[in-house]
């Protein structure tokens, strides 16, 4: 038997504190991992960065510049100290501070990811709810099958392939939208669609399945026994109960979108941190790689934390269930 807790606010606070602590520990693990990233490169990373033809004195000069000649402990203190003061090192290829590169390119990537997330979330709910309600009633079976089949296919098509297909159809075939570049709103349409379609289909399926589960629960039968109008039945009784699962799935989608920008930015030649990380790995520009991997990991952790906080606000029971 559950008894009312004496302080209804406290489990929620404890939940939030626990999640914050987890994010901090995760960030520490990520810091260590990105620090050791360069150490883990087999052979000499400086030689690898400059290529086999570089003269030995250039290699030594860069080694000193990167601080790789120092003892490991001192390197780590310098790394963390630099991070605290916003100094992420200097790019080997462009000789520009990594922090400057980030400041230029991060907003573009964030805008792309957020736009795609909004499109996916706004599109997924009506589709998922509508297909679940009509599937539960056993009506329009062929339409349901067609929609769920389509969603299944869209989930399976990777975003970089979809991006190429979209360019083939809308840029090459119809000449309607620009195939590459960044600037006006027209430039954002295809990248956002390419990023959003898979997550939208995935979320819609989660909403569909969750809605079907909730519609079969005894409390919905109770609500049906009151003969409530459909609006109250679905919006008031069913929707609040799919929030937790949908938000959790939304977290997966959000972190997936952050990573998805890497591919989509590359296809559409968008100057964000995604296309930059790819070129910096190919060029073995380790300071830049380190900074970008760190930022990407931090974005993922931030997205997860954001979802956890949203869960705590919207669904206090998740906090209680975990306690």
């Amino acid at each position, binding site marked *: *038997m559950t008894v*009312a807790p004496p302080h209804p606010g406290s489990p929620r606070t404890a939940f939030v504190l626990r999640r914050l602590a987890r994010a901090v520990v995760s960030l520490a693990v990520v810091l260590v991992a990105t620090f050791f990233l360069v150490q883990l490169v087999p052979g000499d990373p400086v030689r690898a960065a400059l290529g086999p033809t570089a003269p030995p004195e250039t290699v030594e000069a860069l080694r000193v510049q990167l601080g790789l000649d120092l003892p490991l402990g001192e390197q780590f203190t310098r790394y963390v100290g630099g991070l605290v003061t916003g100094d992420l090192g200097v790019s080997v290829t462009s000789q520009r501070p990594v922090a400057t590169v980030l400041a230029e390119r991060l907003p573009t990537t964030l805008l792309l990811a957020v736009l795609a997330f909004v499109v996916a979330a706004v599109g997924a709910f009506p589709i998922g709810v509508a297909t679940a309600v009509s599937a539960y009633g056993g009506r329009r079976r062929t339409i349901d099958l067609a929609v769920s089949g389509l969603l299944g296919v869209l989930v399976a098509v990777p975003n970089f392939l979809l991006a190429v297909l979209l360019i083939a159809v809308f840029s090459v075939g119809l000449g309607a939208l620009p195939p590459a570049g960044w600037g006006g709103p027209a430039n954002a349409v295809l990248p956002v669609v390419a990023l959003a379609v898979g997550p939208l289909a995935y979320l819609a399926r989660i909403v569909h399945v969750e809605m079907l589960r909730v519609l079969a629960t005894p409390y919905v039968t*109770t609500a049906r026994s009151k*003969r409530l109008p459909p609006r109250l039945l679905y919006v008031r009784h069913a929707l609040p109960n799919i929030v937790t699962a949908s938000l959790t799935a939304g977290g997966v989608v959000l972190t997936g979108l952050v990573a998805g920008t890497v591919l989509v930015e590359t296809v559409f030649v968008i100057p964000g941190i995604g296309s930059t990380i790819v070129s910096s790995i190919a060029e073995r520009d380790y300071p830049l790689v380190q900074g970008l991997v760190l930022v990407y990991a931090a974005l993922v952790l931030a997205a997860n934390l954001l979802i956890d906080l949203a869960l705590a606000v919207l669904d206090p029971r998740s906090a209680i269930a975990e306690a």
Partner: protein
Amino acid sequence: MARKLTPQGIAVLLGLLVVALAVVFGDALFGEAATARNIAERQEPASLAHPFGTDDLGRDLLARVVVATRLSVLLTLGATGISVAGGVLLGVLAAVLPAAARRVAAAFIDLLLSFPWLLLALFFSVIWGATASGAMLAVGFAGVPVFARLVNTLAASVANAEYVHVARMLGSSPLRTAVRHVLPNIVPPLVVNTATHASVTLLSFAALSFLGLGVQAPEYDWGRLLNEGAQRIYLDPMAAIGPGIAIVLTGVLFALLGEVLSERGGRGQAVRAVRATTAPKPVPAAADAPVVDVAALRVAFRTADGSLVERVHGVDLHVGDGEVVGIVGESGSGKSVTAMAIAGLLGPDALVTSERLHFSGIDMTRPPGPAERRTLGLEQAMIFQDPQSSLNPALSVGLQLREASETHAGTSRQDAARRAVEKLRLVRIPEPERRVRQLPHEFSGGMRQRAMIAMGLMGSPRLIVADEPTTALDVTVQRQVLRALRDAQRATGAAILLISHDIALVSGFCDRVVVMRGGVVVEELAADRLHEARHPYTRGLIACVPDLTTDRARPLPVLEAADEELLEGVKA
């Protein structure tokens, strides 16, 4: 046990056979066309001779896509192998460590899992560089957390099985337990997930090669071909779409293989007998309608494989105003289905036919009209078995009490709220003014069940259907709930239909008892004349109830499960 393949299974295996043939013979058959340079035919768009066009050295792109199958598939299998091996190692390790270390390992796996595969793959490809083997290691390692979690979860579920406890008691070391007893039992789900994961790996690998971080020229896999094709998409869209088709089709094949493998069992079971349902013969309702009037009610359910199973085989039932009727029977006797049919609350998979199925003169076989919805919303009250799940966990108890009156009687929010407090007090819920604002999880089980009764009293109930209302509660709480039900009946004069498996409870509470078994009514008699029961099943039920004179040294009589013999006796 041999099992038949579904058409889908056959199609998947045929598709994989084609892929396997391309892996083995692709190079021998098309290697020539894929490498032969032809300056005269360079960068040609798609044509009959070159369905995907030619590249900048005049090589046929279709041939290149076929030849690339080998490298794409082998790298995928290699990376999948790394993921599985690493995942099993990490997962088993996490399962056999001492408790504290086990939690740290699980948290570490969780942390890795919170990162999308691409980020992990990029991280590892920094270490191993932009080469085919580096990408294989990167994609393989990026998949390790997925399998580590899977193995960890599966191992935890098996680790609680009895045979593992026995092995531990016999002194088997944790590692030995894991390898000898746990691993063999998680192999089937592991195989299924490996196939599904191969699909993800294929796409991941294509993505890395597409980014230029995987296979490098002059070698080529599908991802690299897609990269090259995308660069000249204006000249020849097929140069990009061709490799894309290969990637998606093969990915879908691997994913479907996982589904085919997981369909073991479930199929091939004997299809249960389908009983024909009689066509409904609508009979007009009597003028002064009884509360419940049911004749020849049959309910069948659609099963997953599309056949129909009839659960109620022609039940007649009559409940007058203010009458308290109990339906007793074992689980599967059709008593709950009958009650839900009367309430019109069976799900869409139920097929209801009857000569008459009336509540208050309303034909419950048809969807109700607006006026009928109003009547049903106000005059019918439901109480279900599980108080944990019959109230909406996301809405306050007060709102759930109020909404029927607000919707159907046009009661204002304030009036409805006042009435809700009043009804909660009637069912003896302490501090109702405070309690109405609470969520159901702040109520105890017995309080929730009484809140359900109060909810039914918000309108002007003619019938309260109580489906096993006390089964999930302990004995003292049962008494409170029954007392609330009795109070409710006295306060409103509503009839009660009480569904239970407990004949002692029903006979103590009801005026009349209906005994059901195997979907038919076997006997119906007044509660105070139960000792005159003629049907052997009813007598058996009564004999099962121990009283003060029961010899406790002897076992209680045991009823046989419903069988044809008894049912024959009913028909005779």
